[in-house]
């Protein structure tokens, strides 16, 4: 695999209950770049993310075919170490899902599952992750408070930090700012710009303007097919496909 490709998607098709959710998707995801996946509802964007972190396996009715090469290894094969992949390809969901407990315990949850118990080590990675999600200053004295004391925007940044603690290589974000106010949204977008230096980021968003602001590359999905994939600047200035143009201009969605 060429040096700057992190994930190679080959002939990915997803079906359930005779509905084709993704139809023969083929493209490359590049290292240290932010890829925005845009498109109207039911286009397969979330399904695609859930293939990348193998969360589709929770639903036995979903049938997946094709290959996803991550670091040159096909993660859709039966031999895959599923739990390792989920730690390397981390996900932030649309609504913040705080696990009941303290802020510290939420962040330590992932590493503890893996067996990391040393408090000094945990403290260190937790602090690093909170700084990387621009949350450290706001919670550094409150780590033992219940997570429900935080605002929605803070909780979502916490969910981002919770994934960073696992030192994931790829970050999947599924409409992470959909429930947030503009200030929190801006903080998360700022964090992503910093994070792409060390991580590969895939951001699903319904907000076309956010895609234009934040991403380096954009992929337009529509009804399960990949319609267009290009640098963000190109797609927004010169969309080559009429459907892409219509979606970006807001003619449907």
């Amino acid at each position, binding site marked *: 695999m060429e040096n700057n490709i992190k994930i190679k998607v080959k002939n990915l098709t997803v079906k359930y209950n005779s509905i084709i959710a993704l139809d023969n998707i083929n493209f490359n995801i590049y290292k240290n770049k932010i890829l925005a996946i845009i498109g109207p509802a039911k286009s397969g964007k979330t399904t695609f993310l859930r293939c990348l*972190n193998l*969360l589709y396996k*929770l639903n*036995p009715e979903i049938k997946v075919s094709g290959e996803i090469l991550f670091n040159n290894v096909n993660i859709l094969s039966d031999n895959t170490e599923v*739990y*390792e992949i*989920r*730690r390397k390809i*981390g*996900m932030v*969901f649309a*609504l913040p*899902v705080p*696990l*009941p*407990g*303290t802020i510290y315990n939420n962040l330590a*949850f*992932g590493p503890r*599952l*893996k067996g990391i118990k040393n408090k000094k080590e945990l403290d260190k990675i937790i602090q690093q992750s909170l700084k990387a999600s621009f949350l450290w200053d706001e919670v550094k004295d409150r780590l*033992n408070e*219940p997570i429900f004391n935080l605002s929605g925007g803070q909780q979502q940044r916490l*969910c981002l930090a*919770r*994934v960073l603690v*696992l030192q994931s290589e790829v970050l999947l974000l599924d409409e992470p700012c959909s429930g947030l106010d503009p200030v929190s949204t801006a903080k998360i977008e700022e964090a992503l710009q910093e994070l792409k230096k060390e991580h590969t980021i895939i951001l699903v968003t319904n907000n076309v303007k956010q895609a234009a602001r934040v991403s380096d590359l954009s992929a337009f999905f529509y009804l399960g097919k990949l319609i267009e994939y290009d640098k963000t600047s190109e797609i927004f200035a010169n969309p080559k496909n009429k459907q892409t143009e219509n979606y970006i201009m807001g003619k449907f969605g």
Partner: protein
Amino acid sequence: MKFFYFLTGLACFIIVAIVFIVVGNIIYLGSGNITMEFLTKAPELGMTKGGIFPAIFGTVALVVLMTIAVIPVGVLTAIYLNEYAPKKSKLLKLLRIALHNLAGVPSIVYGLFGLGFFVHFIGTGIDKIFYGGNIIFGQPAIIWASLTMAMLTLPTVVVTTEEALQSIPDSYREVAYSLGATKIQMIFKVVIPNSISGILTGGILAISRGAGEVAPIMFTGAAYYLPYLPTRLNDQFMELGYHIYVMATQSPDVEITKPILYSTVLVLFVLTLSLNFIAILIRANMRASMRR
């Protein structure tokens, strides 16, 4: 509208009044006899003197053994039903129907089942295999009574635990998986800690029934008078509910035993309340520590 308001208020009043009358009556007629002697000594002279300590001990022992049996089985069943069974399987439907039917079986039927299955079948089986035919376990014993009570309360524990598990949103499970959890880790580190309150509620309901039911233990282990306390699993035991039943129906001298009867009822009442209270305290404690 006002008439409806009056009607519902009257219904509440009637319920509260009934509780007050019943409890008040018990306290009034029963508290006279409650002395340290009553609570700590064994009965003497055909239940006309002495105390009911063995019955108190027996009731607590029964409830403890029953809880040890029913909680793990009930909780594990509920976990299987909610987390493992494929949602549309026929086995699942069958299990649920079986569970709901079990909940409606009268307690006397459980008692007879306990006698036939535990005492005569399992008990004599154990005797044949381990004790060469001597009657050790093939007779009424506290272990069989506890297991019979555990079967009685099992549906309640399963249903309350299942409801508690279902109330945990799927998003919690997905987050756990997405952080690299295996299914077992997800269940024991996310789902159970967050539903412990509901699980304990099932336990509390089971305990209340356990302390109060008499029919299931009548043939499987309870006795009216024993000169010893149950210290081994195959001992019989005295029990407050059973004691009350026998005193009320077979007493040779009603005048003397009636006050003792009321006092025994009062003791059972307070004991059940205390067991419930302890369980509720434990539950509140766990809720508080989850919030932290």
